[in-house]
């Protein structure tokens, strides 16, 4: 990364209200993922430069938390809940449906960039289990057929 780029991202972080305090590392990663879609190597470099710490230190923290992704996400984001309530109501079937239908596993993106998929532990709508979230919208009481339909809707959209 060139010095200009580092300065540019520093200004961007400042503008977003960050001060350079070490405690801001996780919010910074969240901000970067929010604005860039994922934590790219450039992102790690920019954040490390901004906080004055090593890139390894940024990776140490980022890789600990399930929220951060290091691969370019797809157009549509699919989350299948595998929390307890959803497990009891057949959440695993839904995850299997994704493997079989989209041929991707937890954390991957389809080759055509249409979908990325992540397993999560509870979206807080347990009484409506099993639950799937697509692009921020939660679908309740899901089964394989319903999930296939939802995926199809998004594929065409």
């Amino acid at each position, binding site marked *: 990364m060139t010095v200009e780029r580092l300065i540019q991202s520093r200004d961007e972080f400042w503008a977003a209200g960050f001060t350079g305090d070490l*405690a801001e590392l996780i*919010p910074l990663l969240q901000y970067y993922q929010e604005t860039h879609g994922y934590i790219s190597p450039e992102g790690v470099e920019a954040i490390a430069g901004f906080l004055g710490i090593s890139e390894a230190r940024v990776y140490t923290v980022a890789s600990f938390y399930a*929220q951060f992704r290091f691969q370019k996400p797809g157009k549509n984001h699919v989350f299948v809940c595998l*929390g307890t309530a959803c497990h009891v109501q057949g959440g695993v079937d839904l995850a299997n449906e994704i493997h079989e239908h989209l041929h991707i596993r937890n954390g991957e993106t389809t080759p055509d960039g249409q979908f990325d998929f992540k397993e999560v*532990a509870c979206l807080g709508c347990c009484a409506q289990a099993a639950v799937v979230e697509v692009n921020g919208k939660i679908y309740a009481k899901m089964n394989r057929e319903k999930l296939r339909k939802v995926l199809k809707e998004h594929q065409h959209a």
Partner: protein
Amino acid sequence: MLEKLRLEAQQRWQERTSHNQAVIYIGTASCGRAAGALETLQAIRETLQDLGKEARIIEVGCIGPCYLEPLMDIALPGLARVSYANVTPAKARQILAACLTTGDLLPGKAAGHFGDDSFTRTSGIQPFFDLPMLKPQQRIILQKCGIIDPEDFDSALSTGAYKGLERAFTLGPEGIILEMQQAGLRGRGGAGFPTFRKWQAARTATGKPKYVVCNADEGDPGAFMNRALLEGDPHAVLEGMLIGGYAIGAREGIVYMRAEYPLAVKRMCKAIGQAYNSGLLGCNICNSGFDFDIRVQEGAGAFVCGEETALIASLEGLRGMPRPRPPYPTDRGYKGKPTLINNTESFGTVPAVLREGGEWFRQFGTASNPGTKTFSLVGKTRYTGLIEIPLGMTLRQVVEEIGGGTRFPFKAIQTGGPLGGCLPADRLDTPITYETMRELGSIMGSGGLIVMDESTCNVDMARYFVGFACSESCGNCTPCRVGTRILKDTLEKIVSGEGEPEDLEVMQRAAETMNNASLCGLGQAASNPVISSLKYFRQEYEEHIHQKFCRSAVCTELFEYTILPERCTGCGACVKVCPETAIHGERKQAHTLDTTRCVKCNACVRVCPVHAIVGAPVGTQAGTTRLAEAAI
């Protein structure tokens, strides 16, 4: 102090809900949205336009009975609020048309009303809180959830928000802690540590500045009490934090929120903004000389960050790894300073305690477990949702009265989430308290209750929980890192049919080491699901190991489906969904299932209304024999 503010808020709120125009309330918390509340809301707007009627629409939080979502209430001018359940867009149109044009409240369609007894008589509608699920409950923490508009400050203020804070200012820090001692509130995050003692310790700790942290990192998968409170009444949590901050002499508060709860985060941030604008946060709050700031920090998806020392590490920008205690956070917490960490619900209970007094709070619950506690009741009960009960109520009351029982025979209830235990039917008469749960080998935890029936396999559940603990273990201490792995691998072996008799002993030994030697509560309690189910459901483990049979028809390798002729009514529902046409039979006559074609997708089990499709040991069914013959 707040009289003027409150009076104005009351006026504005009354104008908004005044009884010369209809008011429509709709529950748009995450759970309502999942059930389709936003589509219903859209339909309401369109219908109003079509009908040419004016009405005020107010979005409210979750009132609890999630199985009734989406819930829509209508208050016609001068009349009580009437609630309708499972309101699809079409149903919304129908109800609005009747109510708004002819004034017909459609009593047959109403779920209940929020008015007084005379309204019951005149309308022919039952009170909402008389619903079987709600009647045995006691609502203190959830009192306003689903009733008020959580994004409208006037709504909160006019229903008594910050009254507890006002009283707290008159009592002073020592008085507050005394009141908390009288109330006997115990931490709702799981361990049940007396809240007043924690506050006392934080107050007397030396070191400045002090911090208040609200633990809203509800990590228990299958529980949503904190989410519902944050989405339904965020000011209650803020008020609790303010009171705590004043009592211990802190200057800053942080709400550590789970990132998977975007709506809760949004509503909390909004509430914080409202509190700043009204002088309830910032400098010299209500002329008391007390300064306090609150900010939100989002977690990043790690269960272990619910543990207080890991949470602090996460706040400091580190990996969320717990450290040994003592020193406790009240001595050395965030940035090495004294820090008060309480659960969201603990803070949410504080305003009521201060407002009504410790004695009042004590009238609920038992002597050693005072007050009420929220639980999320999910799984196979008829009614599911968020409940609040006085502690000491029995599990049976919760499952049978509030939950309405299970459709198929009850098997077990998991309390305390992934670190809790699985309790069988003959323990249902146990009162729910911190101590009794621990004695049974489970924990109270933060309040997840998952009910399982015969279609749930206890070995598979144990595998699930241990798998969760294994992937969420931070890896810092060996007993937890290796122990969860041993448990997980052993259970995976058992559910895939490779179990050996000595496996049970191996798990017992691993569990013991983990209990004794792990650094934090995760490792210490991660074996609870295994040990408790071994204690109460040992037979199922033995069937898995010796007979290679899963009677609940969950562990794919260990059963074949069969249709019980005495249960099957021949409705044909299973035939329609079977992707392999493996089920045959005349209508109204018992069906048969061809195991050679069956792929165990379990679509038929899900649609069977009488639970006639069950598991049988492998190789005992007709289809299999035919296959065996063919092979010869």
